[in-house]
């Protein structure tokens, strides 16, 4: 399949339907030519609701980190539209390839929040069943999921699954070789893969200007023959419309799509990061005025699609979910030391069985000597 370069080029300005103050703006000519349509009010209500729930989950996770319940938590507050809308643009049979920052997206996907947080809690790494949820484990090594998404999309296609693979990735990770190899494979094999770059302006401390000289990350698709687009990542209506169109394009067999969403990370990289070292409060304030939830809510209320009572209802629901998450996260997880040996291989090697026996003996020894200093640790780890 050959493409005209005009088909590949992103709109010169990010696609936008809603201004920061929640009013409708005129779609640019190019965006209109691409056929982006303002979503239906019910769709936008669903996006709004998921964002409210997602943000409450995110705040709760940040709080749990402060209480030492999570080893680390990378917040996605501010990126709510990019976390929620792409997931709502997917069908049941589609796959998601997320990173450590995409917890809100996975909650929107319907995965139990405790499962989503398992990696960050420091328990076993993937707290959900990837096959059952059609969601790959959150990737820590950057950009590696870009190639997995291409391979999975190709495989799903060969199996006639009519499924799209959505790969979520950060701006910094687009510098890694795997990102480029992923795009190239996706294009060469014409796979139904959709890449969403959440350009939140920083890779830990490194600003976009030191990451790339490209005017937009969306241009990175063109060299590979991948259709590209850029969107206002804090405009939930635009993100939904663009992602729906991208998924449609991929699903129809027209090949992969790369979307760059311009957004901002409101919190530090993680709780362990000191963001004051590399960005100013003024910059953060500027983005506070671009809040995607406020933006969409303002429009929904102004147009009579949402009232105070409904807002209260969803807020109450979010509180309930947060309380439930808190309660369940406050239970010490049961971590059985011998579970270490269970999934290294399908069949443990003789060497591993020997080591298992050694640990078993150690644990028995610790349990037997009730006064030994090892006892506390043992109880701690087996509770």
């Amino acid at each position, binding site marked *: 399949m050959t493409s005209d370069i005009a088909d590949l080029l992103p709109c010169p300005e990010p696609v936008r339907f809603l201004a920061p103050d929640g009013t409708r703006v005129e779609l640019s000519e190019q965006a209109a030519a691409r056929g982006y349509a303002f979503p239906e009010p019910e769709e936008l209500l669903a996006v709004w609701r998921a964002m409210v729930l997602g943000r409450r989950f995110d705040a709760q996770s940040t709080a749990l980190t402060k209480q030492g319940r999570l080893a680390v938590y990378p917040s996605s507050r501010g990126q709510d539209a990019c976390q929620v809308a792409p997931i709502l643009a997917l069908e049941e049979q589609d796959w998601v390839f997320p990173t450590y920052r995409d917890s809100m997206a996975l909650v929107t996907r319907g995965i139990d929040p405790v499962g989503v947080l398992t990696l960050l809690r420091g328990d076993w790494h993937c707290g959900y069943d990837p096959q059952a949820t059609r969601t790959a484990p959150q990737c820590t090594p950057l950009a590696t999921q870009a190639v997995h998404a291409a391979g999975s999309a190709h495989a799903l296609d060969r199996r006639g699954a009519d499924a799209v693979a959505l790969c979520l990735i950060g701006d910094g990770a687009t510098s*890694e070789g795997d990102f480029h190899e992923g795009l190239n494979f996706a294009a060469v094999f014409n796979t139904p893969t959709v890449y969403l770059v959440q350009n939140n302006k920083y890779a830990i401390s490194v600003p976009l200007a030191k990451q790339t000289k490209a005017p937009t990350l969306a241009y990175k698709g063109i060299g590979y023959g991948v259709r590209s687009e850029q969107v206002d990542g804090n405009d939930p209506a635009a993100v939904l419309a663009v992602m729906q169109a991208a998924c449609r394009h991929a699903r129809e067999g027209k090949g992969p799509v790369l979307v760059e969403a311009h957004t901002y990370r409101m919190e530090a990289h993680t709780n362990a990061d000191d963001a004051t070292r*590399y960005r100013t409060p003024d910059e953060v304030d500027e983005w506070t005025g671009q809040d995607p939830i406020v933006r969409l809510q303002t429009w929904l209320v102004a147009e009579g699609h949402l009232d105070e009572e409904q807002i209260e209802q969803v807020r109450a629901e979010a509180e309930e979910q947060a309380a439930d998450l808190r309660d369940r996260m406050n239970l010490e997880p049961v971590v059985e030391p011998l579970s270490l040996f269970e999934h*290294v291989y399908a069949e443990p090697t003789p060497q591993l069985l020997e080591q298992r026996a050694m*640990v078993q003996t150690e644990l028995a020894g610790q349990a037997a000597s009730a006064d030994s200093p*090892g006892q506390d640790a043992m109880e701690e780890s087996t509770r």
Partner: protein
Amino acid sequence: MSQTTFAQALNRAMRDAMTQDPDVIVMGEDVGALGGVFRITDGLTRDFGEDRCIDTPLAEAGIAGFAVGMAMQGFRPVIEMQFDAFGYPAFEQVVSHIAKLRNRTQGKLAMPIVIRMPYAGGIGGVEHHCDSSEGYYIHTPGLHVVTPSTPADAYSLLRESIFSDDPVVFMEPKPLYWSKADLDLPVGTEPIGRAAVRREGADVTLITYGPQVPTALKAAEVAAAEEDWDVEVIDLRTLVPFDDATVQTSVRKTGRAVVLAEAQGFGGMGAEIAARVQERCFHSLAAPVLRVSGLDMPYPPPKLEHTYLPGVDRVLDTIARLQWDDEPDLTHAGAGGTAVTV
């Protein structure tokens, strides 16, 4: 004397090297304004400028390959891999180019590159943040592999590494970053390739390095207090080149040896040391050389790392199996080198 942390010593080593030679440059992810995620490069960009301490794009293969190019033109790049396991994307550049260019060009192209890399666990990090990847590098001819365990050595060995004309994989035990010593910098430097005897002893030689040095010293203390075993502790400091002389002298004296390393045991540094000791000191040995290591599995999640990591008890159990009478009893010597007492 002032208290100096391991991290400060590394920072000072880079500062002093950068002051001494304008061709020394530091590069990596977040090494600039942030000073690195562990703050090891703190203030270097401020004090030496963005051309000397460079925030690179997020691409480890790129960082390593870029360093190759700069080294070809006479610079001395000191590159930072943010965490042990994030060095893997750069593996091709490190093993195929950084390690081999001197050999491939019959000595015409040197690669005076230092690859700094925080490694090891015990800090509650999530996956991919606690690997011990030294085994991959020691197996690659052309690379030096250095791993200090004290602030003085951190300073001394990093400066030596920066001015080495060969590439050095400089592995920093991250659990020791905030350990302190009474130390005024700069200290005189010592050549790469010499082990240190951290504790003298007569009964058994405990050979270790990096993050496990404190464990070894602790085990030696407990062994002396509770079992009356006098343990000599050797801190290798450099894995390649290997200091056979210090190790042999010690083992000939004590007649017994245990190797302690945090990495998975199978095919690792401990196997190499055990083989060398056995080849060179066979007639002095009263017992087989035993190993204590991490388990042969991916590094586990934080809640299980203390079961995984070789601790004082596992070291003592292993020392206990060294046949303290003259009747060698090999029935409990576990294959894979771990203490099996079933």
